[in-house]
């Protein structure tokens, strides 16, 4: 039994519970007297609520509560607490509904059948309003307005600019301008959202909910109920995936808590898959226009990037997306001059939100596809073109971010080698009998440093309690939603204290029991931020125990004390040491029984606007295109990635594979198809995500760097790779077939039409489609 788990294939600490079915997810819980909730949703995309009659529903035997918007405090909420004007949601609609699925009423009854029967008895009269379903309609002069405070439907604009753009283009030998469009896709986490609320005698709430951000839910729920933050306790049980789709307060959380307070009974809501797909959060559809200039030798000179984000009916995480897509547009390559303008536009669709890779899959599909197009036009190999312009350690996006460690060039070299790129790619497009290979690259953040939630607490925190029996209790609000952070945090702790994984007991994701604060699981932040907090806490314990051993053995002051193999001992004279448990007992005795506790926090300071450090990677996809059917089959994906120092290779592999799967769906098959504001493919039968038969063989290597900001040198790996997959597949489709896709997904129907020369079906945006970002409105 080694006590050095870092860098090893450590199996998940929750593996047994999940493998045996004993892990408890929210919907698995039930309490005596528990009520079952159900939500009434708007069937129309935009309407004024003229009349609401809940009397028949309330009179149905077994119904314990019927709640409508006017029953709830009129407190708008949203994750961007730093800018309250962006907080535009109410749990239940008050005056009007803005998308098909907007929540209108909530019912709680003794069982689910009764709750559903009651929903059917609620009468709502809607006065229909004209609706807008795409960017052009929403931004047209005189367009219907979704929110009165936003008369032009543009809720957020963001800009990034550096360098002399005109000079850059002026000095360019080759300039091209392209427009790209990307679609809405679903997180499609396997566990539908669920929430369970309990109230105590004072009306304080305990909410067990399927969330990736317990602290955010705690604060926002308190504000919507008029409670103080700590009168709400949020508990995160096992969570069946999130991918960004479970990082906000949601209407069912508010309704469950409100009804629990009113009835004094526990209340549970569980969403159906249809609700999830038809009304749930999704990845922002975008239209991206990119103008880029090169020297004849391939040197990048300038880039002008304009992006319109279709946000749907509410802001959700749109303000972050609007900034990040501009940040990612400036990543990977050294642009001497860059200008970005982005606008977040309301439409009468279900709101888009954060999703794995947040902003990068869209920005990098455009960037990477355009690099491949430029390489073709310049007659330069796409990997050579990238190597010529690749970011290096220490590079800067002025006033935005600094690149720390960066193994991008090495990733490019490695992926070229692994895939046999130079030989296979030497053949021209469409010449490989339907086979082709293509490249895409990525960079991603390792945690976000911009405090949009305006937390007054640390970004992450951890408490380590060492006991005299040799066990250690780790407490942190960090939230494992399936990515494996509980395991990695315990690895970090075991490594630092020289104990075994099974010596550690962990309490996580509980706002009442774990130290404040933690912003949750998003932006690939947990390993770095919570990991550093755990390290700091562990080091305090270590220091205290080392002091005991120094005293006990009268160690020379120059001698280092190490914690290893369950011992606290002199590094120089390992025989001078005592077991960890004994050292803890000694420390307690020396302090009149005071427990041995370490407390660590992590809050980024002076790290720009984006992140402490970026991951990098390059990916090559091989495809087989069937010219007769238009079907693209991905046969192999090679990835070379820089995720800093690898803490758990098996877990890292799992993240890369999961990214490839989701990225492949984005590239080829996944799309929430909308018609008149309705999602028409709201089932897993019709929403096509890759299954066991679709997955290619995946080969990945880590180009290790050691990042001084990450625990043991680690950077992110859970989100970055997803952004490389779609452009790599699109490039491979070009190499295989000669068709260059600038719109996703590349379905068989679209590809076949394009290969037959029919542009109308292909969905490719014509060059004149506007991406003009309006100037920000003066705000009152």
């Amino acid at each position: 039994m080694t006590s050095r788990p870092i860098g090893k294939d450590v199996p998940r600490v929750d593996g047994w519970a999940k493998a045996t079915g004993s892990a408890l997810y929210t919907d698995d819980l039930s309490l005596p007297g528990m009520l079952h909730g159900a939500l009434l949703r708007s069937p129309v995309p935009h309407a004024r609520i003229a009349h609401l009659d809940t009397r028949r529903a309330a009179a149905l035997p077994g119904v314990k509560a019927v709640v409508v918007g006017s029953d709830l405090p009129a407190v708008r909420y949203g994750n961007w607490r730093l800018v309250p004007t962006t907080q535009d949601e109410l749990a239940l609609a008050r005056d009007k509904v803005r998308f098909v699925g907007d929540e209108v009423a909530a019912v709680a009854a003794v069982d689910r059948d009764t709750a559903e029967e009651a929903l059917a008895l609620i009468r709502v009269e809607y006065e229909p309003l004209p609706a807008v379903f795409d960017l052009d309609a929403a931004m047209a002069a005189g367009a219907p307005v979704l929110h009165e405070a936003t008369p032009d439907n543009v809720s957020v604009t963001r800009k990034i600019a550096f360098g002399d753009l005109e000079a850059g283009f002026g000095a360019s030998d080759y300039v091209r301008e392209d427009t790209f469009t990307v679609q809405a896709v679903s997180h499609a986490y396997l566990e539908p959202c669920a929430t369970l609320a309990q109230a105590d005698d004072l009306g304080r709430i305990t909410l067990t909910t399927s969330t990736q951000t317990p602290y955010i839910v705690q604060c926002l729920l308190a504000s919507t109920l008029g409670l103080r933050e700590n009168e709400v306790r949020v508990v995160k049980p096992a969570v069946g995936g999130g991918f960004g789709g479970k990082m906000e307060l949601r209407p069912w959380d508010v309704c469950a808590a409100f009804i629990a307070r009113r009835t004094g009974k526990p209340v549970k809501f569980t969403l159906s898959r249809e609700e999830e797909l038809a009304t749930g959060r999704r990845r922002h559809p975008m239209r991206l226009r990119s103008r880029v200039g090169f020297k004849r030798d391939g040197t990048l000179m300038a880039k002008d990037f304009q992006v319109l984000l279709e946000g749907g009916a509410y802001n959700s995480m749109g303000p972050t997306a609007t900034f990040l897509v501009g940040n990612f547009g400036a990543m990977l390559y050294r642009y001497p001059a860059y200008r970005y303008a982005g606008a977040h536009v309301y439409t009468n669709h279900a709101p888009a939100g954060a999703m794995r890779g947040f902003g990068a899959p869209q920005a990098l599909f455009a960037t990477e596809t355009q690099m491949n197009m430029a390489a073709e036009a310049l007659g330069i190999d796409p990997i050579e073109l990238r190597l010529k312009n690749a970011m290096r350690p220490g590079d800067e996006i002025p006033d935005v971010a600094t690149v720390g460690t960066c193994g991008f060039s090495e990733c490019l070299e490695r992926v070229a080698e692994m895939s046999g790129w130079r030989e296979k790619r030497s053949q021209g497009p469409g010449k490989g009998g339907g086979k082709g290979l293509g490249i895409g690259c990525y960079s991603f953040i390792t945690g976000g440093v911009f405090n949009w939630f305006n937390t007054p607490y640390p970004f992450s925190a951890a408490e380590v309690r060492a006991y005299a029996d040799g066990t250690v209790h780790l407490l942190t609000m960090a939230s494992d939603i399936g990515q494996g952070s509980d395991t990695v945090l315990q690895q970090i702790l075991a490594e630092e204290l020289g104990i075994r994984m099974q010596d550690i007991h962990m309490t996580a994701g509980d706002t009442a029991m774990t130290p404040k604060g933690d912003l949750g699981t998003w932006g690939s932040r947990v390993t770095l931020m919570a990991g550093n907090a755990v390290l700091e806490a562990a080091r305090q314990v270590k220091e205290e125990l080392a002091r005991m051993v120094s005293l006990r053995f009268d160690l020379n002051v120059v001698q280092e004390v190490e914690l290893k193999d369950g011992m606290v001992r002199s590094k120089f004279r390992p025989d001078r040491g005592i077991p960890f448990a004994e050292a803890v007992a000694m420390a307690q005795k020396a302090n009149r029984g005071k427990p041995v506790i370490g407390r660590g926090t992590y809050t980024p300071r002076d790290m720009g606007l984006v992140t402490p450090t970026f991951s990098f990677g390059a990916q090559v996809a091989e495809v087989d295109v069937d010219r007769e059917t238009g079907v693209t089959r991905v046969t192999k994906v090679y990835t070379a990635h820089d995720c800093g120092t690898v803490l758990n290779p098996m877990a890292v592999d799992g993240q890369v594979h999961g990214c490839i799967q989701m990225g492949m769906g984005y590239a080829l098959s996944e799309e929430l198809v909308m018609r008149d504001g309705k999602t028409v493919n709201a089932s897993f039968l019709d929403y096509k995500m890759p299954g066991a038969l679709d997955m290619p063989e995946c080969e990945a290597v880590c180009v290790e760097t050691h990042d001084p900001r990450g625990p043991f040198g680690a950077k992110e790996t859970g989100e970055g790779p997803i952004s490389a997959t779609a452009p790599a597949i699109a490039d491979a489709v070009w190499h295989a077939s000669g068709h260059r896709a600038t719109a996703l997904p590349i379905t068989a129907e679209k590809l076949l039409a394009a290969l037959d020369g029919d542009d109308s079906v292909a969905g490719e945006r014509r060059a004149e489609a506007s991406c003009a970002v309006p100037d920000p409105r003066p705000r009152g």
Partner: protein
Amino acid sequence: MKQTIRLRVNGDAYEVAVPPWRTLNEVLREDLRLTGTKRGCGDGDCGACTVLLDGRSVTSCLMLAVEAVGHEVTTVEGLATARDALHPVQAEFIAAGAIQCGYCTPGMELSAAYLLSRNPAPTDDEIRRGLSGNLCRCTGYQKIFEAVRRAADRLKEAARPDAAAGDPATGGPAGGDPSGGGARP
């Protein structure tokens, strides 16, 4: 409206009063409190609700509870015989890193167990086909394929005439580390 039915689940007999429209999935989860069986879609598309009916894999969300009368139902709770005696499929799911969020895991394991009960030495393609009714959104399936390959090897090992106790048919302990590589370093 309710009718009383007798179900046999994981070898135990239950008597429950259920409305005839109640699915097997609902009765397992809500009446018998066997919540290891998940519900991911309710349409039979995702496979998270997979159970075995007389040893055959079925989606419990598409089957009425009354239809299960007279049959032997096996859920994930019935796969392991003791805390430290996991079914080889469970043990290898843990050891190979085939579990992330875990929501697809019970159904995936039962499909894998069914596959291996019919085909103890599946090819890679047969493993893919055997799992094609189960969606996973986290793992990209690679480690799941690996876990099934390793479980097949373990079962093969256990089935050798000279092998010690371990019954591949019921998936009893198959030798080696009983906690299935769940042992922590």
